[in-house]
């Protein structure tokens, strides 16, 4: 036995936390453009670095490789392909997910940073790397990443 005292009630102790009440997380200058385009136009936009020939989705105001300022935004469309995926059977609290949930990294174009999202309308055993998928958006959108419900296979 490693612990001499097994019950916390046997020792004097104090319950506390170490967080603030709450935080404001902002999307930033580039993130604002991404979420407004998603909400108002139903578009997924990225920012292109011509020097590195790399497109960031969501967009950024700078290229992290060469530090160029990125001002060119482009509509990435809604179709992409699965780069990596997982099928989760438990949530973070250890509760069983029934049915299991599928998550994937989805690339919306060549030399484009993939986006993390859910997969839907597909049986887990049918998911594979390279699978062509398409974003399904909510009809009423609020400017959040969950405005995209999931990506479904392209028929």
């Amino acid at each position, binding site marked *: 036995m490693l612990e001499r005292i097994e019950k916390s009630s046997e020792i004097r102790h*104090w319950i*506390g*936390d*170490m*967080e*603030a*009440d*709450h*935080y*404001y*997380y*902002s*999307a*930033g*200058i*580039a*993130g*604002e453009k991404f979420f407004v385009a998603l909400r108002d136009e139903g578009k997924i936009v990225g920012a292109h670095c011509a020097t590195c020939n790399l497109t960031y989705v969501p967009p*950024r*105001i*700078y290229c*992290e*490789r*060469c*530090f160029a*300022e990125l001002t060119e935004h482009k509509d990435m469309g809604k179709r992409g392909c699965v780069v990596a995926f997982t099928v989760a059977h438990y949530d973070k609290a250890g509760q069983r997910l029934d049915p299991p949930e599928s998550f994937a990294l989805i690339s919306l174009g060549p030399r484009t940073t993939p986006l993390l999202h859910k997969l839907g309308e597909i049986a887990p055993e049918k998911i594979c790397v390279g699978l062509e998928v398409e974003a399904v958006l909510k009809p009423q959108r609020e400017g959040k990443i969950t405005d995209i419900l999931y990506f479904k296979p392209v028929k």
Partner: protein
Amino acid sequence: MNLKKIRKDVAVVGAGMTVFARRLQETGKEMAWEAAKMALDEAGLTLQDIDAVIMGSAPDAFDGVHKKGDWLLDGAGGTNKPYMRVFIGGGTAVFAPIAGWWHVASGMFQRVLVVCEEKMSSVQPHAQSAFGHIWDPILDRPLKPNLVWIFSMEMQRYMYKYNVRYEDIALVAVKNKRNAVGHPCAQLADPNITLEDVLNSEPMALPVRRLDISPPSDGAAAIVLVSEDVAYEHTDTPVWIDGVGWCIDTTMWTNRDLAFPKFVARAAKMAYEMAGIKDPRKEIDFAEPYDPFDYKELQHLEGLLLAEPGEAAIMTREGKTQRDGEFPVCPSGGLLGVGNPIAAALGIKIGELYWQLAGKAGPRQVKKDVRTGVAQAWGDLMQVSSVVVMRRR
């Protein structure tokens, strides 16, 4: 300690700094990039030229992201490079450049980017709610202390022991907020502020009043450090880091000497020894001590051995510490005038030393010819100090 066997001399060849203000929209990464890009541009370098990156940022609790150093990485330009985050609370502003210095001084790296970022507006309802968790959870926290109370006790002890008048302390706030008028990044500049304004400002936790304190802020700053081997490839006016020092006092804040900051003196002596300074009052031309509160500028000047205990208040009253005085102190406008986004005070402390010594401080340029300056920051639970001596050769 062996302070002699340093392999390479280290120079600052560029600095950058964002506006200090409440910047709710920009992410910390975006602010870090803005400052880092400015520093690189001034040095005439690109990110590809940088061998390693140091990030300085105070506790994760401000931005609300754990492992904030990793999170800020891409904005700081650290992707695919040797990268480390350092933090010692408020002392980070001068400690991050010390970490950058040892990366270069060791001979391992020739060009290092140091970026400091802080976004204090994320934490709600106020940054004090994050500070509320730095205390001992059993002895201090049940009494619900906040930082202002503690500093008030320290200020009161300082005034009592060295017979310092509040009116002289308040003059520091007046000086720094006026100095900041020339600073393009300033949040708290006030060309018309008077002593009466400070004396009549709202009591926070007496003796501390509202205008004695620098409020929370958001911002970023960056500097480029290079080895002696390449310094003159980048500029004709490198500014050399000739001495560094740091020291921390006991965890139990109640057990410290609250009137005289011994840990500052120890850090200063280390930096002075490395820089070959025997008589700091004669050999140092100006100073950028850490001034989140007006009394701290005075206490820190004394800790830096630039004044006898209690004397800094008299120097202030006599005008000696004005920008055009015989010993300019906080010509930047300091934290009281420019703002206090914790680690990003790098731009006010080390940035200002660089701009002043390179003759690039514009309207803030001190009148006298300056060759040697000292910058200092203070942090953790009011117990740590970092000191840097810089010179133009």
